[in-house]
Every structure is written in structure tokens, then in C-alpha cells.
């Protein structure tokens, strides 16, 4: 009964966010995010129907849908990167480098596992495979989030909501799927409540933050018509400034 309640609440909230997004024109601002949410909404309805009509098929259908939503979710991360860093090419380059590093590390791990004679990805169950993919997603969100924090990138309420909601969902998934793999069937019952509940919390965040479109933060460069300084001279000047406060420990930044 409780699971059904959580499930239906999730469906209603997702529908509300989609409806609202359509009415206020947010679909065009965040097309990947709304594509992802539409998929999750339709997936919930389809899975509910399968659960009642063909319960034996439910397990397979659930995992197929889960992987499809995982792939679409990766596009949400790309959208956050695209929308937030569009006016900041310098920060976008750093974020691209970090994302490249995360994916290169993942690829290297797959190659090492293969050369050791094991499978491409050491996952024995679908839950483990999803956990591993969610970890990669978490690292990608972490990279984008940290870069945005360090460079103090202005972000509006909508963008904050999308990143906070999806990041929270991925963080919860990583912990829950790890516990599921570690504890096995004893965690199954609890997981069937926790997982939809955490998604319900995420939907609440999205409903609150995406209810109306927020004003785009003004880029300081656009506001002040500032020219772009050559990066090498900027580095040289900042290096000089930092050496002025070197606490008597110069030499650490010799090239």
C-alpha cells in the first residue's frame, strides 16, 4: 500500500513538473532534462501496467527501463554543463578536461579488467552494473559541480534545482545499489521502499525549483563589456601576486 502511494505520488509530481514546464516554456530551455523526465513518467506508467498484467515480465522490464533512464540521465549532466558554462569558455574548457579525465579513467579500468582476463566490467548482477555506471555519473556530476563552485559560476534557481535533484538521486542510488550488492536479498524489501521514496524527494525538489522560469544570471563580462585578457599574461600576473604572499616559500611555482 505504501509503495503504491509513493509510486502514484511520484507519477503525479512528474506529470505536474512536465505540465508546468510545457506551460511556462521550460521545455526549450532544458530539452534533455524534460526528455528524461517524460521518459521516467511514461516508464512509471508502463511499469505499473506490466506489474499488474504480466508480473513475470516486470523484473526484466524494470532493468531495461532503468538502463535507458540512466543513459538519458547522462544527457541531463551534459545539459547542466552546456547551459551553465555557455558564457564561460574558460571554465567550460576546465570542465571538459575533468570530464575527459573521468571517462578516460573509466575506460582504462575497463581495459585493465579485460587484459586481466575478466569481463569488461566486474559486475555479476544488473544491480552491480547499474551501481558502477551510477558511480561514473556521480564522478561526472562531482567534476562539473566542483568546477562551477571554484569558478563561482552564477546559476539560477532552475539550474540549481536540476543539478541538486539529479545529484541527490545519483548519490542515493550509488549508496542504495552498493548496499543492495553487499547485503543481497536482505536489503531487497527495504530498498523497494527507499528507492521510490528518494525519487519522490527529488521530484519535490524539481517541482519547487522548476515551477516558474528564473531569470538568466547576467554574465559580468556582458554586463560590463569587459575585454578578455590573454590567459598567459593573466597567469603571469596572478603568479606574481601569489608570490607576493608566498610566506617565504617561493620556488614552489617555478616552471
Amino acid at each position: 500500500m505504501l509503495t503504491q502511494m509513493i509510486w502514484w505520488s511520484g507519477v503525479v509530481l512528474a506529470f505536474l513538473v512536465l505540465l508546468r514546464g510545457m506551460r511556462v516554456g521550460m521545455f526549450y530551455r532544458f530539452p534533455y532534462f524534460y526528455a528524461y523526465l517524460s521518459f521516467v513518467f511514461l516508464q512509471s506508467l508502463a511499469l505499473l501496467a506490466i506489474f499488474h498484467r504480466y508480473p513475470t515480465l516486470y523484473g526484466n522490464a524494470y532493468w531495461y527501463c532503468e538502463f535507458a533512464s540512466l543513459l538519458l540521465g547522462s544527457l541531463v549532466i551534459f545539459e547542466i554543463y552546456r547551459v551553465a558554462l555557455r558564457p564561460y569558455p574558460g571554465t567550460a574548457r576546465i570542465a571538459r578536461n575533468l570530464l575527459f579525465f573521468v571517462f578516460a579513467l573509466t575506460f582504462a579500468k575497463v581495459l585493465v579488467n579485460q587484459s586481466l582476463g575478466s569481463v569488461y566490467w566486474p559486475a555479476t548482477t544488473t544491480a552491480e552494473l547499474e551501481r558502477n555506471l551510477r558511480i561514473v555519473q556521480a564522478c561526472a556530476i562531482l567534476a562539473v559541480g566542483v568546477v562551477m563552485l571554484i569558478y563561482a559560476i552564477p546559476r539560477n534557481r532552475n539550474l540549481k534545482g536540476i543539478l541538486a535533484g539529479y545529484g541527490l538521486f545519483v548519490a542515493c542510488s550509488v549508496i542504495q545499489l552498493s548496499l543492495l550488492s553487499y547485503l543481497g536479498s536482505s536489503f531487497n524489501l527495504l530498498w523497494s521502499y527507499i528507492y521510490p521514496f528518494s525519487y519522490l524527494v527529488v521530484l519535490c525538489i524539481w517541482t519547487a525549483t522548476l515551477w516558474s522560469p528564473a531569470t538568466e544570471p547576467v554574465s559580468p563580462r556582458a554586463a560590463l563589456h569587459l575585454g578578455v585578457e590573454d590567459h598567459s599574461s593573466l597567469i603571469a600576473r596572478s603568479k606574481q601576486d601569489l608570490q607576493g604572499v608566498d610566506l617565504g616559500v617561493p620556488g614552489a611555482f617555478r616552471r
Partner: protein
Amino acid sequence: MMILLFSVLIAIGLGWTLLRFLRAEDPPAVFPSASVDAHPQFIADAVFSVRDWSFIRREGSPELDSLFTHERRALAIYWLRDCLARIRAVRANHLRKSRHSEDLDAPAEIKLLLFSFYLAALCRGLLIAVHFVHPATPRSFVLYLQNSSARILPSTPPLVFSRVPVQEVSRQRL
């Protein structure tokens, strides 16, 4: 078990970043001109001077010694906090400008950021040492670095040229 711990660490890191992300205020549209001017030389002299210490020690008064330690601790804390603020200001100003750079050199940028984080960590470490060990810790630390660098690389120029005053005003007994 290892992967469970790793997952929990990743999730905690992500949660912390999101929390910071939500709490952080949007930066002002206008660049504040951060003050990176050097602090008064006499404060650095006071933090690094050894003559004052020896003068007070010669007096042999525990009350005077404790009063002087208290005063020097306050000065060292002020000096270190000022250094920390200047490092932050330089970093913030640099980041605000470099985020617009079309020709950003990522390795140089990361190197500069790491250097600023290293200096800030050093300041924090010295602040803790000044609080709990002795107000003369910055001086001892810098001298230690100077000696060890001279041992490792004899041709390296001294590390602390301007910090330790070359000629100090000699004090007269009162």
C-alpha cells in the same frame, strides 16, 4: 566491502558539493577590486624578529614573558589571516577573469590553483600551530624550510629574504 566504502565516499563527496552549490551566493556582477597590497612591513618584522624575544627573555619576568607571548600570538594570527585573505583575493580575481578566457591553458591554470590551495593550507597549518604551539612558529617553519632547501639544493637562493629583517634595531635595556 572496499567498493561499498568507495561508493559511500563518492556519495558523501557529491552530497557535500551539492550542499555547497546550493548555499553559495551568486557572485556580484561587478568585480570587487580585491586588496592584494602588502601588509605593513613592521607586522612581518614583529612576527619574524628574534631580537624582541631574546630581549624579553633577558628580563627574566614570567609576567612580561606571558604578556609578550600573548601580544605576539595576536600579531602572528593577524598576519596569517591577512595572508590567507590576500591569497583568496588573488585566486578569486584570477578565476573571475580566467573563466572568460578563450585560450585557457588548462595545465597552467590547474598548477596555479594548486599553488594557491597549497599556500592557503600552509597558512591554516601555521594558524593552528600559532594557536596551540608558539607564536614564533612561522619563523621557525620558514627557517626550517630555508635550512632544508639549502641542504638539498646548495645553489638555491635563500628562501626568506625579505621576511627576516637583515638589520634589526637594537633595543636598550629600560
